[in-house]
C-alpha cells in the first residue's frame, strides 16, 4: 500500500523467508513418523504440547498482563474431562478432546468473574487458589479414582486406533496439529481488532481505556480463549500419558513453572519467544536432566537472570539487534521515491 509517497507494509522479507522455512519444517514434521524413531516421536509430541502451553501463557501474561500461576487448573481439567467423557459418556477420544476445550471455556467464565476482582500479583495467587480448588475437588470424585487417579481403559485406548503404532502416530499428529492451531490462533487474534486493543492495553492501560477500549472485556476474552485451548492441550497431554491423578494433573511445577521459564527465557510478549524458549528448554533438559533438582535450580536462576538483565529474553535480544519480525503484527512505514506516477 502506498500513501503520499510512503509505503506501508506488514510482511518483511525476513518474515517471508521465515514463512517459507516454517512451511518446509512443518512438512518435515508432519512426515516425522516415517523418519523419526519412536522415542524421538514421543519427545517431539511433548515439545509441541509445551510449545502450545507456553504460547498460551505468553498471550495472557505478555499481551493481556494477566500473569497466572494457575494454568494447571485447565491442563488438569482438560485431562480429567477427556477421561470422564470417554469413560462415562462414551465419547470418541478425539471428540472428547474438542469437548474438553468447550467445557474449559464454559468453566472459565465464572472463574474469571471471580478472580478478575484481584489485581496484578494478587490475581496470580488467586489463579493458584482456583487450581488448588480444582485439584482438591477432582480428588473427591471417587468415580475418577479419587486421590490416586485412574488409567484410561484399554477399550477406549483401542478406539483411537487399532495398532500401537497407529495410536502413537495419531497422538503425535494431534500434538503437532494443536501446536500449529495455537500459534495460528494467537497470531490471528493479535492481528485482529481485539488484538490491537490488547496491544494498546499492554502498552498503557489508562490511555487504552480513555480511547474507549473495554479493558475488562478484552482481558476476559483472552482468559476464556486461553482456558479453552489450555484444556484441549491438557486433554492431549493425558491422552499421551494414558493415566491421570490429581497431583500429576494439577502440578504447578510441570504445567506452570516450566512454562513460565520457557516464556521468560525465550522472550515474553513476542510470538517467537515461546518457540525459542521451548527449544532451549528441551535442549537444556536433554543435557542437564540427570542432575534432577539441580537442573530446576539452574532453570530458576537462569530465569531470574534473564528477567533482571534481559527482560525481553533471547528473542527480544535478537529482534533489537537485527530488527527481525517473523510473525509480523504491526505495520512498517517507509519513504518511497514518489517520482513515478
Amino acid at each position, binding site marked *: 500500500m502506498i500513501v503520499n509517497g510512503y509505503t506501508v507494509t506488514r510482511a518483511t522479507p525476513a518474515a517471508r523467508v521465515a514463512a517459507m522455512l516454517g512451511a518446509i519444517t512443518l512438512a518435515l514434521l508432519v512426515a516425522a513418523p516415517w523418519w523419526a524413531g519412536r522415542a524421538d516421536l514421543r519427545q517431539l509430541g511433548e515439545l509441541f504440547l509445551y510449545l502450545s502451553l507456553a504460547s498460551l501463557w505468553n498471550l495472557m501474561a505478555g499481551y493481556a498482563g494477566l500473569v497466572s*500461576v494457575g494454568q494447571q487448573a485447565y491442563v488438569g481439567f482438560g485431562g480429567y474431562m477427556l477421561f470422564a467423557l470417554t469413560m462415562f459418556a462414551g465419547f470418541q477420544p478425539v471428540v472428547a478432546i474438542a469437548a474438553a476445550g468447550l467445557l474449559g471455556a464454559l468453566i472459565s467464565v465464572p472463574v474469571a468473574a471471580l478472580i478478575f476482582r484481584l489485581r496484578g500479583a494478587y490475581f496470580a495467587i488467586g489463579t493458584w*487458589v482456583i487450581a488448588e480448588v480444582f485439584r482438591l475437588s477432582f480428588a473427591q470424585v471417587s468415580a475418577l479414582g479419587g486421590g490416586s487417579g485412574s488409567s484410561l481403559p484399554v477399550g477406549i485406548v483401542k478406539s483411537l486406533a487399532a495398532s500401537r503404532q497407529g495410536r502413537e502416530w495419531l497422538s503425535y499428529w494431534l500434538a503437532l496439529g494443536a501446536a500449529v492451531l495455537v500459534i495460528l490462533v494467537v497470531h490471528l487474534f493479535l492481528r485482529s481488532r481485539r488484538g490491537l486493543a490488547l496491544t494498546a492495553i499492554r502498552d498503557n492501560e489508562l490511555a487504552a481505556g480513555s480511547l474507549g477500549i473495554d479493558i475488562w472485556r478484552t482481558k476476559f476474552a483472552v482468559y476464556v480463549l486461553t482456558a479453552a485451548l489450555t484444556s484441549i492441550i491438557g486433554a492431549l497431554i493425558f491422552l499421551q500419558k494414558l493415566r491421570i491423578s490429581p497431583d500429576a494433573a494439577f502440578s504447578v511445577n510441570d504445567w506452570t513453572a516450566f512454562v*513460565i521459564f520457557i516464556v521468560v527465557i525465550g522472550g515474553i510478549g513476542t510470538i517467537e519467544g515461546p518457540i525459542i524458549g521451548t527449544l532451549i528448554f528441551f535442549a537444556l533438559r536433554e543435557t542437564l536432566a540427570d542432575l534432577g533438582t539441580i537442573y530446576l535450580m539452574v532453570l530458576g536462576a537462569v530465569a531470574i537472570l534473564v528477567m533482571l538483565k534481559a527482560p525481553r529474553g533471547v528473542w527480544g535480544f535478537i529482534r533489537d539487534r537485527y530488527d527481525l519480525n517473523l510473525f509480523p503484527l504491526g505495520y512498517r512505514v517507509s519513504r518511497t521515491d514518489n517520482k513515478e506516477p
Partner: protein
Amino acid sequence: MDWINALVQGILLGGLYALFAAGLSLIFGVMRLVNIAHGDLIVLAAFLGLTVTTATGMHPLLALIVVVPLMAALGYALQRGLLNQTLGDDILPPLLVTFGLSVILQNGLLEIYSADPQKLNAGGLETASVPVAGLSLGVLPLLTFAIAVLVIWGLQWTFYHTPLGRSFRAVSDNQDIAQLMGINRRHVFGLAMALALGVTAIAGILLGIRTSFDPSIGGGRLIFGFEAVIIGGLGNLWGTLAGGVILGVAQTIGAKIDPGWQILAGHIVFLLILAVRPNGLFPRISA
C-alpha cells in the same frame, strides 16, 4: 460440644495463618511487592530450626534466637541484592523473580534435606493441654495464638510509633518524595523485608512444632497466608488476624463435616468472601 471444640481449634489455628500472612501483608504494605517465595521461606525457617535444634539440642522455641536474626539478615540481603532491582511500575519482574526464587528454594531444600517429612521436637509442649470451660485446649495452639496477637500488635506499634515505622509509611505513600526527604528507600525496603522474614521465622518454627513439613509444602502455606490477607482486607494487620481466624475456622469446621474437605472448605470460604466483598472484610487501602 464437638462443634464448639472445632470452632475454638479453628480460631487458634487462625493464629498460625495470621503469622504466615503478617510478613506478606507487611511487605505488600511497604513496597507493593507480592512475594511468591513467601511460603518456601516459611519452610526454610522450619528447616533452619531443625538444623539448629539437632545440632545443639536446643528447644525449638529457644532456637528462635538463632533463626529469627538469620532469617532477618537473609531478608535484608535478599531485598538489597535481588528484589530491589525488580521494583517499578511493571508487575512482571517481581512476580517472576520471586517465582524463580521459590523454585530454587524448594529444590535447594530438597537437595539438602531430602523429601522426607520432618518435625521439630518440642517435647511435652506438643501434647500439653489445659481444660477451659469443658474444652481441652492445647498449650501450643494457645501459645501460637498469643504470639500471633503479640507479633501483630508489635508490627502495628512499629508502624505508628517508631521512626522506622514512619519511614515505612513514608515510602509506602510516595517513594520519590520520601527519597527527597532523605530516606534511603533501598535501605528501608531492606529493613522491611528483614522484619517480614523475622516474622516468617517465628511462623516457620511454630509450623514445624505443630505439624510435619517437607520441602514441597511452601506453596500451600503461601496460599493460606494470601487468603488470610485478602479476607481481612489489604493493608490492615488486625484484619489479617481476623482473616486467619476465619480461614482456620472454615478449615476445622470443614474437616468436622468430612476430613477430605478441610483445605477445600477454607478455599471455598475465601472465594465466597471474594465474591461478596472483593476488598476483604476490613479494607484499609484499595489494591
